[in-house]
């Protein structure tokens, strides 16, 4: 009897479930029609704003800005420009004071050839002649083909000669200092404008090549990469060739040094990754992981806000890295026991992990996507429905960036403002941040009424 009854019961319950799904689907559709529309409009609006910003970049304005930056950055260019300006000015004054002399002389000198004036030399001819005299004088060539005759002209000439002497010294000094500076600096400096939100990888590890390949495949990732390690340039070149989107720069320096990290604009970088360094090691040698800890400390001392990801081989270093305030630590050995055990206890789970993690086909596997602004402040079930019915993606959970602890939040409005202000002021002046560093934490499969704010990004299975 029991066995006969069971299938029937199952059919009824399946029927009920299907009915419920149907009802839910209709409800979701109706509920989220407006929601989806709103969210999509927001996303499109965001795009429009971006276009507008791009359009606003005027090429002439940009060229002028670059010229200004060049002027500010290049000593030689600045001195040359000023010298030329001063020469023109002094020549102009001399032309006005000694106009008769120079205009008479230019008439004798060049006769009928090359005259701007119709009948005789006009002010352009005179000015050019005075300028010629000025250059001949200040380069100490001194042809003597023309010289001022009046006392006042001679007095002015003395001033101009002394002025020119100063200019020549200045210009000569500038040329020398620029050359010396270039010699001291060695390598060319990286172009500051390019490096913002880029990735820096310190140390050389065989995994870098495949890491870069995965980053290359993700169109949203910043394509600027700086590698800092002392591996031979040829090896690096071979490893990073073939990337179309990525723009890789190699600095062959010791990455534990603060100055080197600053040269790679570490303060501006989006991610600073420290790898176990295999530069110059034989195949059976192990990298020195003290360097990883030291580099993490150096980076955090340059700026607390730098997002540091460290790849570590020996678990002994994990506590050191945590103390160095590293944002994320990658320790692959941690996963091995779980993977092995799951093959016994839950066959299929390790395979699922393999599929999810190594899925390299574009737009497949587990990915993190931004949640449209229109959906912020809504509950998990609504956001889940949005991805399900709009994109056919499964919302697995959320990646949340948040500080572990914030003293300001903890203190709130309690106590006297005087004491609170004193605490914040004193910590600030001591360079201590009032909140601990931001880490990414994940919230997997939260309850339906879990509220999502702007710190959340969606973890979706595509």
């Amino acid at each position, binding site marked *: 009897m029991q066995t006969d009854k069971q299938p029937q019961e199952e059919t009824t319950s399946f029927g009920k479930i299907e009915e419920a799904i149907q009802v839910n689907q209709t409800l979701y559709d109706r509920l989220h029609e407006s929601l989806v529309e709103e969210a999509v409009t927001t996303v499109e609006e965001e795009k429009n704003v971006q276009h507008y910003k791009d359009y606003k970049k005027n090429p002439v304005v940009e060229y002028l800005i670059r010229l200004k930056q060049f002027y500010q950055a290049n000593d030689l260019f600045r001195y040359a420009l000023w010298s030329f300006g001063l020469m023109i000015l002094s020549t102009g004054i001399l032309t006005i004071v000694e106009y008769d002399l120079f205009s008479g002389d230019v008439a004798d000198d060049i006769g009928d050839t090359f005259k701007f004036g119709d009948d005789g030399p006009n002010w352009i001819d005179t000015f050019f002649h005075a300028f010629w005299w000025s250059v001949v004088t200040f380069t100490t060539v001194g042809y003597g083909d023309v010289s001022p005759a009046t006392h006042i002209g001679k007095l002015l000439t003395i001033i101009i000669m002394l002025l020119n002497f100063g200019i020549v010294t200045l210009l000569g000094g500038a040329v020398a200092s620029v050359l010396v500076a270039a010699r001291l600096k060695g390598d060319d400096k990286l172009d500051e404008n390019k490096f913002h939100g880029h990735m820096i990888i310190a140390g050389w590890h065989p995994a870098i090549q495949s890491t870069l390949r995965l980053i290359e495949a993700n169109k949203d990732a910043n394509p600027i990469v700086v590698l800092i390690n002392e591996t031979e340039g040829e090896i690096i070149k071979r490893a990073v060739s073939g990337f179309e989107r990525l723009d890789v720069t190699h600095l062959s320096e010791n990455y534990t040094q603060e100055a080197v990290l600053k040269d790679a604009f570490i303060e501006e970088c989006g991610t600073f990754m420290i790898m176990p360094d295999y530069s110059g090691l034989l195949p059976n040698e192990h990298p020195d992981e003290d360097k990883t800890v030291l580099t993490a400390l150096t980076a955090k001392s340059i700026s607390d806000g730098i997002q540091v990801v460290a790849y570590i081989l020996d678990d002994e270093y994990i506590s050191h890295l945590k103390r160095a305030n590293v944002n994320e630590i990658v320790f692959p050995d941690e996963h091995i026991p779980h993977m092995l055990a799951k093959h016994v206890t839950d066959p299929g789970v390790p395979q699922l992990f393999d599929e999810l993690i190594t899925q390299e086909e574009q737009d497949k596997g587990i990915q993190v996507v931004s949640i449209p602004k229109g959906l912020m402040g809504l509950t998990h079930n609504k956001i889940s429905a949005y991805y399900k019915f709009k994109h056919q993606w499964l919302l697995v959970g959320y990646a949340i960036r948040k500080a572990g602890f914030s003293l300001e939040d903890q203190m709130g409005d309690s106590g*006297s403002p*005087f004491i*609170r202000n*004193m*605490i914040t002021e004193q910590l600030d002046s001591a360079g201590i941040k009032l909140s601990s560093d931001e880490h990414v934490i994940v919230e997997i499969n939260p309850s339906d009424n879990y509220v999502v704010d702007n710190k959340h990004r969606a973890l979706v299975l595509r």
Partner: protein
Amino acid sequence: MSIDAKQIKKINYFSKLPEDMCAKIAKVVEQKKCGPKTRLLEEGDTGDTMILVFQGQVEVSKNMMVKAASGFTMSRKSIIRLETTDPAPSMDPITEPNVAVVQAPAFGIGEFSLVLDDAIRTAHVDSTTDVEYGILKLDDFSTIVDENPSIGSPVYFEVAKAAVSNLATASKDISNLTQAFFFILTR
């Protein structure tokens, strides 16, 4: 300006007292006047007088050991400014306030001296405008209370209320400071 019962009643500690009692207090209050930048109370001093400010603005500040570029130095930190509204100060304050300005028709400072012999002043009080104020001595006040025991209760109740609220703030301050201390230690 002469001190009368109405002015005494404006001060919150005495607001619940009947007019005739306020008049008695007004009689024993010694009237005073000062310009800006006058120190009315000195932190750490002991005193048996309460100051009643009828017109003007004063700044309450504390000496604090703070860390500056040159090392630890003692610095005077403003906590709050108090200002009368009835009447308002006769001039603008000589320095712009960088702390909250709390307004009241009139106010009393050093109120703990009404209950304690030789109460220790917990902060500096300096005038920032011309100030019209009065000084009430503990002895005089005690004599009035001895003669009229009924006025003690409302006044002491207000003083106790102020003390309790100060205590609550102080315990919050201690908890904030402890948190900051652990925050720095665990970095």
